[in-house]
């Protein structure tokens, strides 16, 4: 609680005690009671009255301070002094609770995003000085000790350590970094001491980009927020006008109607006419939703996108790097005569001087030191493969064409992917299948999309038909389109947008490389593995910090939960207000009930909104 809230709390307590005293102690003269009530009113309501007076001079008639002042002073004037005080008291309790709840949720979201580094230890004049990260320039050397946040993006030049990327990615397993590797600001250095050369200024560093994004997220307003502010705009004047009519008309047309009774009813109207309690819970819900998403490593750039995600109808994904790992790996070794291990060894040795992706994946799969002195001669046969003399044996590693060229009798493989055939001393010894692997996470993601009522999951790729078909079948996707050129992707997405229902949304998710036109075209463009890729962060509406597609599914769940809470709050608050209006017009609900309803609704709506921050782990 800050000072402002503490002061308000003290005023509430004092005023409440005075009200209690004057209720239970019977003075000889009624006047003493009234004086006590009046003192209580001044203590609790002076700031509201002062603000109201100030606001009238500026023409703000429908300001909540003004409305509360009229309602309470009106009550006092018609002789309902205790009610006037009580209404003001409850109103202040509600206000206090509201500011407390808003403050709490601000803090909890801020702590979710607590990645802003406070300082950097920079080497200057052979000494280490502690400076603001803003003052460090590119090329300077900084030191990050265990437990400290990495303040700027850079490259490790000395030391090694485990770094915690939890705040950036939602990933709880620490990452090992060593000399020559890039590190991102906002990560926490767990154990070792790192010397880092700064690659980007603070303003351009990952941490600034992310903070900027999250801080500005709630400025892009959703349709629900716009609806509720529009509602508030009309609601208050209408209720106030009805109140005026209620006070004046019935006493004239209904026989025996007391002017005082109807004024009382009208004043109850004024108590519920203030829209603030109603309006607060909606942005609070979106704020919470965006906060909850950022906790799992998904940055949503605006409430409007969070709202739209709840209506996801079509998900269009890229294949390579999105559903698959994007790196070629040895998937299968099929050896004849030799153990698999030896086949891989000869293949790796044969290709040991090549930098072709296939050569790299063969060496990675072999994963042992290669004694290059054993390879005495090596010759690349363009578009076919490699011929090398390994340990005095003639080894051929390549595709079908290579086998044909050397007239080797080989068994063709039926596997999907790139098949590498190996022959030793003119004899076929087996094949190795190299393919891009589907991420384990993609299976989970597709299941979760289906569970969240996504109607079509479509894969677009420039890759070959048979490889794409295999991926689509394994993942159980609804549709796939292979061998596409970049412009084909755009026209297909345009077609899908025309096919979807009017409320449904099309989401495109890709790794952000060469996807800018499609990202912009989709209702919601999502870039994955956004860390470090500025263009992707720039072009997309939602950024998934890791490379897991299933995070999108979790984000859709958060979005649905947020929207459910928003709807609950809108319906609940509006219906309670209307009910109270009807009851007080009929004279059934007292002013007490009105203020209870008003404050109660806002308290419940805020508590409901705070539920979003509770994320299932």
């Amino acid at each position, binding site marked *: 609680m800050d000072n402002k809230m503490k002061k308000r709390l003290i005023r509430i307590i004092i005023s409440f005690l005075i009200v209690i005293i004057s209720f239970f102690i019977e003075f000889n003269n009624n006047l003493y009671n009234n004086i006590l009530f009046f003192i209580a009113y001044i203590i609790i309501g002076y700031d509201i009255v002062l603000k109201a007076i100030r606001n009238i001079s500026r023409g703000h008639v429908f300001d*909540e301070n003004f409305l509360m002042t009229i309602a309470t002073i009106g009550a006092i004037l018609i002789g309902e002094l205790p009610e006037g005080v009580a209404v003001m008291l409850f109103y202040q309790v509600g206000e206090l609770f509201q500011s407390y709840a808003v403050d709490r*949720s*601000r803090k909890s979201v801020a702590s979710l995003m607590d990645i802003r580094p406070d300082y950097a230890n920079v080497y200057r004049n052979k000494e280490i000085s502690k400076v603001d990260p803003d003052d460090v320039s590119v090329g300077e050397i900084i030191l990050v000790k265990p437990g400290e946040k990495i303040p700027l993006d850079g490259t490790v030049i000395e030391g090694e350590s485990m770094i915690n990327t939890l705040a950036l990615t939602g990933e709880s397993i620490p990452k090992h970094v060593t000399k020559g590797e890039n590190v991102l600001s906002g990560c926490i250095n767990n154990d070792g001491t790192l010397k880092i050369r700064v690659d980007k200024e603070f303003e351009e560093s990952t941490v600034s980009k992310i903070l900027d994004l999250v801080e500005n997220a709630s*400025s892009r307003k959703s349709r629900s927020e716009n609806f509720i502010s529009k509602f508030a705009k009309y609601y208050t004047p209408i209720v106030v006008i009805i109140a005026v009519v209620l006070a004046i008309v019935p006493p004239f047309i209904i026989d025996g109607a007391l002017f005082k009774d109807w004024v009382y009813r009208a004043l109850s109207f004024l108590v519920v006419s203030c829209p603030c309690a109603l309006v*607060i819970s909606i942005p609070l819900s979106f*704020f919470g939703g965006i906060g909850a998403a950022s906790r799992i490593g998904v940055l949503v750039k605006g409430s409007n996108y969070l709202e739209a995600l709840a209506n996801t109808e079509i998900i269009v994904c890229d294949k390579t790097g999105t559903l698959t790992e994007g790196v070629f790996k040895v998937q299968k070794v099929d050896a004849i005569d030799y153990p698999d291990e030896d086949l891989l060894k000869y293949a790796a040795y044969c290709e040991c001087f090549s930098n072709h992706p296939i050569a790299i994946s063969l060496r990675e799969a072999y994963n042992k030191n290669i004694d290059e002195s054993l390879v005495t001669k090596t010759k690349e046969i363009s578009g076919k493969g490699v011929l090398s003399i390994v340990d005095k044996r003639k080894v051929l590693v390549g595709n079908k064409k290579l086998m044909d060229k050397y007239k080797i009798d080989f068994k063709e493989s039926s596997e999907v992917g790139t098949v590498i055939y190996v022959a030793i001393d003119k004899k076929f010894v087996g094949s190795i299948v190299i393919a891009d692997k589907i991420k384990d996470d993609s299976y989970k993601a597709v299941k979760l999309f289906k569970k969240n009522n996504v109607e079509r999951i479509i894969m677009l790729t420039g890759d070959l038909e048979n490889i794409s078909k295999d991926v689509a079948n394994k993942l159980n996707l609804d549709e796939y389109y292979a061998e596409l050129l970049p412009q084909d992707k755009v026209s297909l997405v345009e077609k899908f947008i025309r096919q979807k229902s009017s409320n449904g949304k099309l989401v495109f998710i890709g790794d952000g490389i060469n996807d800018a036109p499609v990202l912009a075209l989709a209702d919601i463009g999502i870039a994955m593995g956004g860390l470090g890729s500025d263009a992707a962060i720039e072009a997309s509406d939602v950024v998934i910090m890791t490379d897991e597609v299933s995070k999108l599914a979790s984000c859709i769940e958060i979005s649905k939960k947020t929207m459910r809470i928003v709807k609950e709050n809108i319906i609940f608050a509006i219906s309670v207000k209307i009910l109270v209006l009807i009851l007080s017009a009929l004279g059934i609900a007292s002013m007490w009930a009105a203020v209870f309803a008003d404050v109660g609704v806002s308290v419940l709506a805020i508590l409901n909104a705070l539920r979003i921050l509770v994320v299932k782990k």
Partner: protein
Amino acid sequence: MKKYKFKIKGLDCVNCANELEGELQKIDIIDKVSISFMMERLVFECLIENKEEAIDRIKKVIKKEEPDVVIEEV
């Protein structure tokens, strides 16, 4: 056009924030004004040479509409 960010403190409620945002949008030399009540943040765009004048005029509007509100650049 350059984007400027301010911390905005002392707003009572979302509605007041929305109304103030509406008033600030009437200032002709600034663009894309938005107030986020939850983040206590005021963001706007204007030409670099107009920055001082823009801040002056924003402060005037704030003084008239919400005298308790203070802003400071971040």
